[in-house]
């Protein structure tokens, strides 16, 4: 039986951590736009989903969603469970798609391809679980 070369194990570990930081950066950075910077553009994204600006302001949705993204970004760094990675991949595609629907250039969505692919790539590298219980383990 062939055994893995040590350098290959190091490469796999490096790749795993590189992708973890990519996913974490995408989530934490984007979440900070809302929770820390309170970007006005976020009102446009919520408007696409039918939330008026007054509703968003009164409920603090920008800070809540932004804070949740930051939290998930930190969590995925230390606990990259497959289910979480799959959710984050879908979330990134969904949240970035809001940009063109909110009136931003479509290239803003295209340019963020790496942000959307990172969770999927990490999921592939770590392995697509066969058993349901494995989806919530690392």
């Amino acid at each position, binding site marked *: 039986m062939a055994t893995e070369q040590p350098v290959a194990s190091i490469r*796999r570990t490096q790749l795993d951590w590189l992708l973890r930081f990519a996913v974490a950066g995408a989530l934490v950075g984007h979440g900070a736009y809302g929770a820390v910077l309170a970007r006005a553009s976020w009102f446009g994204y919520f408007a696409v989903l039918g939330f008026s600006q007054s509703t968003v302001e009164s409920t603090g949705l920008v800070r809540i969603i932004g804070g949740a993204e930051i939290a998930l970004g930190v969590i995925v760094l230390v606990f990259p469970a497959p289910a979480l990675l799959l959710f984050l991949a879908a979330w990134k595609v969904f949240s970035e798609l809001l940009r063109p629907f909110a009136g931003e250039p479509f290239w803003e969505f295209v340019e963020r391809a790496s942000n959307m692919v990172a969770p999927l790539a990490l999921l592939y590298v770590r392995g697509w679980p066969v058993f349901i219980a494995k989806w919530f383990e690392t």
Partner: protein
Amino acid sequence: MVGPVASPRETASLVPMRRGAFGDAGPLHWMLRVACAAEFVGHGAFGIITKAAWVPYFGVLGIPPELAWKLMPVIGTIDITVGLFVGFVRPARVLLLYMAVWGLVTATIRPLSGESIWEFVERVPNWAIPLAFLSVRGFGRSRREWLA
């Protein structure tokens, strides 16, 4: 080959990691390749159509606005060309290295121009994904491999 049915820990001792074997075939190669290509085409598009927000980035390097507006389409053309080449021709290692370095430079220049540090944080994938793709393909050991 390491595939989508078992964890890395389970397969680590079973599958020999040939140079490039992990990446030069299959879903991971194409995921990373499409991401790199789309990132550069999207970024380059803004250079072609020009973007006022880019002027301060040139200012960090001491380039005045008049010259910045002229350089934007040049940079945009280079970005799009590199993106399309990587996407449709071949993801040459030297280009992936260029993408990683350029992604890091453009991400770093934003806080240096006065924007929030979170602009850099959100753009970590811009350089990390090309670097990951290069890692998957393996660094070149000869000039020929760097061009391949």
